[in-house]
């Protein structure tokens, strides 16, 4: 036997493929990983601590900055939690607006994932193609709420803005455009043998492991567990729409890839139905007390963000500020499985697997 020496490699916090300031210390034997220790906290801003001194309206902009790729769902989970506590009713149009922006956000978020994942794997162009199409959504959001990334769009009891004139038509036009582009994406890499060889059978785990590790979103569904909160525990208006929950079989990176792409199509399908069913006019802000002061008690609500189950646990003592606010961040929970998956893989697969989990470091560190 040749005696080989272990190489301790520090991947990150500044590394092109760790999607932010995430760091993994890997022990390498040649190029094979024998141990991986994730280190995080480089982007920890103490959102939960800050929130204890802020009232609920003020916390909404902070939620934008957790999962900055999918700020709308973060907005929603907080508002939804407070509304659940206070038993508020949301006007139908407002709820439709929320649903539409959340589904658009899911499309935008999955596009970012698709682009960056292929960039991780070494293809440059898909990144720009994805960002071209995401840009349309971002522009729509910009028109709707005046910001491109940190929307601060939802409020407890409704949404800040109604759709501007013609906005819904633009969304309507976007759907067939995006469907066409999805086919183009599929042509670009969907059949690429190099790409398939890179992701098929990589980062495999079974359903039991996924449940044990509390994975959610595509990471859970790739093992065949049918658990999409939009269907399993419907919130908002999701029980009014027809859509499928794509499921995988093998639980590898390829299944996760397919599921996310299929989710894009399903989101477009939901959008289509939502635009049809949406009331043509109405209030977008419900009847809300001037000072939002949830009654004493606690509540845990969860919704399906693009990355999985995002939850919000509020402990209130009847004040305008939460006594304790905790977010269940899907990226944080999903990332836990990484060290387990990496052992025995090569350095190259580290990137493939990490990208496949789809983390946003802002959310991991909160």
């Amino acid at each position, binding site marked *: 036997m040749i005696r080989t020496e272990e*190489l301790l*490699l520090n991947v990150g916090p500044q*590394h*092109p*493929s760790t999607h932010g300031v995430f760091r993994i210390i890997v022990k*390498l034997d040649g*190029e094979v990983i024998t141990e991986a220790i994730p280190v995080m906290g480089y982007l920890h801003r103490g959102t939960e601590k800050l929130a204890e001194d802020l009232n609920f309206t003020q916390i909404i902009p902070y939620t934008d900055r957790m999962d900055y790729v999918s700020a709308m769902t973060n907005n929603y989970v907080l508002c939804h939690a407070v509304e659940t506590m206070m038993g508020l009713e949301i006007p139908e149009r407002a709820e439709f607006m929320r649903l539409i922006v959340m589904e658009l956000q899911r499309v935008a978020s999955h596009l970012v994932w698709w682009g960056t994942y*292929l*960039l*991780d*794997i*070494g*293809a*440059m*162009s898909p990144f*720009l*193609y994805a960002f*071209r199409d995401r840009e349309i959504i971002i522009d729509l959001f910009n028109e709707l709420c005046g910001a491109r990334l940190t929307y601060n769009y939802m409020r407890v009891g409704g949404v800040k803005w109604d759709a501007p004139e013609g906005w819904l038509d633009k969304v309507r036009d976007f759907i067939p455009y995006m469907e066409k582009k999805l086919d183009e994406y599929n042509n*670009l*890499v969907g059949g*690429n043998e*190099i*790409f398939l*060889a*890179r992701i098929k059978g990589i980062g495999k785990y079974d359903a039991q492991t996924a449940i044990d590790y509390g994975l959610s979103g595509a990471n859970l569904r790739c093992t065949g567990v049918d658990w999409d909160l939009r269907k399993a525990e419907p919130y908002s208006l999701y029980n009014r729409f027809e859509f499928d929950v794509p499921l995988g079989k093998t639980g590898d990176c390829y299944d996760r890839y397919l599921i996310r792409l299929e989710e894009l199509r399903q989101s477009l399908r939901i959008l289509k139905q939502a635009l049809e069913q949406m009331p043509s006019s109405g209030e977008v802000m419900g009847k809300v007390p001037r000072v939002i002061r949830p009654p004493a008690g606690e509540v845990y609500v969860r919704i399906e963000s693009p990355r999985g189950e995002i939850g919000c646990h509020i402990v209130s003592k009847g004040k305008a500020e939460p006594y304790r606010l905790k977010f269940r961040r899907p990226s944080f929970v999903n990332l836990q499985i990484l060290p387990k998956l990496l052992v025995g893989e*090569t*350095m*190259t*697969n*580290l*990137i493939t697997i990490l990208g496949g989990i789809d983390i946003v470091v802002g959310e991991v560190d909160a």
Partner: protein
Amino acid sequence: MGAWLDESLTWGNALIFFLWGVILLTIVLGFVTYAIYFERKVIGWMQLRIGPNRVGPLGLLQTVADIFKLLIKEDTIPRKADRVLFILAPALAYVPAFAVLAVIPYTQDLYFADINVGLLYYVALSGISTIAIVIGGWASNNKYALLGGMRSAAQMISYEVPLVISVVGVVMMTGSLNLRLIGEHQGNWFWEWNFLPQIIGFVVFIIAAVSELNRTPFDLPEAESELVAGYHVEYSGFRFAFFMLTEYVYVYAIAALTTVLFLGGWHPPAPFLDFVPGIVWFLLKFSCIVFFLFWLRATMPRIRVDQLMGFGWKVLLPLAILNVFITALYLELFIKG
């Protein structure tokens, strides 16, 4: 050119050779400058961008500005690096890259050296660059660089073998290792070029050549999404420029070599088109290959290192050997007999 080569070496001749060398260097540098520019443009267009357009008209001076920037950059050598090797590596990489250009013929009459073992010379010299990359990776004393260097060594050795064997078929058909003769041997119809009778060899050669160039989808030694920048992660300034230069000079060399070996060199695709000078045909074919390399880079994801090895040894090498046998059989049965 050929005439001088046969004369005995005098001071005058040496000066002329030197001047030709300088001219070639200038041409190559010019090529590298604009190859980088066009690479960025082409990839930009493919990625729905417009590429560099700020420095000079249409951005034509962009690469000049980039090179100038590299020139005036501070020369940094990591404290724990192996100084001698660290300094040696970029030069060692570049010298063979430039030296191999000597044997490439551009037309029937325009060539720099007419060596009978031209192809062998090319392969032998280009192998030295591998050593330089390994040295650079090792001397940097950086783990990413080391991984990149090791990958590079493994990759280049693995792909050199099918690369060489894939051209054996061409050599057999021509009966010579002299690149000028190989070029000349191909006919004036495009089906008389080597790429059709040697289609297996051609495909293997292209794949192995892209791999030898360390370009996408075989850019593992510098894989920026995994190894940050691979073997040249610690290099900056002009030392980095040398590595960059090496890469593009090899692009030049491989494109020229492919043209000569498989695409009929300076021959027109049909006899009635031979009023166009041979050099134009050569450059046209040459440009197509360079464009193809850029095109690949804009489309392909990167292959994984173990798949790369497997592909090299298990697919390309047997194919190349098969090609040799088929060529031998064909020659034995139909030509010789």
